[in-house]
């Protein structure tokens, strides 16, 4: 992502002069707080600045399309060989890797750049409460997530966790 950000920076600020360096920085920060994938949100915000709502639509579609087409192509190719024992073994180990990635990223996200002492109890309650409720009690993930977000917004305040924004 950061390689693409550098290229966008050169293109938008230095070459085309569509944004100032301050605008670029501000949009990057704002993209991290929008409930959407960070890079996609950044592209949509730049598109909005340049061409309004259609600029946002166009930029998000065109930044998503090349990767998505490659994903679909790879899924089609692997789909045709899905019964092959070699692919089944590879998929199994990739699955194990994804489990490690999810749990590892979860720990990274929890720790961030260090946990505030007042927040750790509520954070731990939220972080362990969601899987406990969903897996052990077969509860709804949506309800758990929304309730935790509401609970967290009331109990955890004025604490920025900049490290967490790097996890994508």
């Amino acid at each position, binding site marked *: 992502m950061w390689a693409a950000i550098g290229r966008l920076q050169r293109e938008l600020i230095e070459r085309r002069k569509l944004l100032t360096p301050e605008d670029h920085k*501000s949009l990057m920060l*704002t*993209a991290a707080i*929008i*409930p*959407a*994938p*960070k890079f996609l*949100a950044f592209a*949509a*915000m730049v598109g*909005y*600045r340049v061409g309004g709502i259609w600029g946002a639509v166009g930029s998000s579609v065109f*930044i*998503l399309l*090349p*990767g*998505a*087409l*490659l*994903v*679909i192509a*790879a*899924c089609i190719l*692997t*789909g045709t060989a899905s019964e092959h024992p070699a692919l089944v*073994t*590879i*998929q*199994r*180990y*990739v*699955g*194990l*890797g*994804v*489990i*490690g*990635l*999810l*749990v590892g*990223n979860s720990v*990274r*996200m*929890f720790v961030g750049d260090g946990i505030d002492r007042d927040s750790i109890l509520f954070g731990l309650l*939220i*972080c362990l*409460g*969601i899987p406990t409720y*969903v*897996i052990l009690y077969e509860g709804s*993930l949506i309800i758990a*997530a929304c309730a935790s977000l509401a609970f*967290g*917004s009331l109990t955890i305040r004025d*604490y920025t*966790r900049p490290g*967490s924004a790097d*996890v*994508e």
Partner: protein
Amino acid sequence: MSSNASLLVEILAVIAFSTLFSMGGGNGQLAIIQDYWVDPGILSPALFAWAYAIGNFVPGPRCSFVAGIGYFLAGFPGALVCLVGISIPTVLGASLAAHWHDHLKRYVALFIPASGFVIAGMMLTAGTGLALNITIDPVEYLLVALIVLGVWLKSWDPGVVVLCCAGIGVLIHLSG
């Protein structure tokens, strides 16, 4: 409404909703996808992990893996609907934020401190749920634990992790 059309509507709704849990750059949408389609057995855990793994290799946002999820669920229309589903909340949120940046900032700021913990909990749920859907040997738990430590302490790149795991899979297949 035919069952295919209702599946596409469901995909659109779930993906659009799951996008809201990408706040702060975290991938909370994985947990929603797993909760809706992997746990009930609609999508196999291997294909779910496979689509996510491929998403780490392609250029652009990693969230493009949702196209693979959509393809496995409903073919090309499913992939297209996933892309629309992820774009709608993003475009709306980005446009609102770009337009009313100063007004919205204070409301969004209320949820930001807690969002990291919520997304961490959701990713933990997704990882645990996926592990429960795959039979894992004790030795394989060691591999998972090593990856967890590597990602946490050394910030291992997801693409490298996926590539190494695929390499291990190839070696295991050749040796067995």
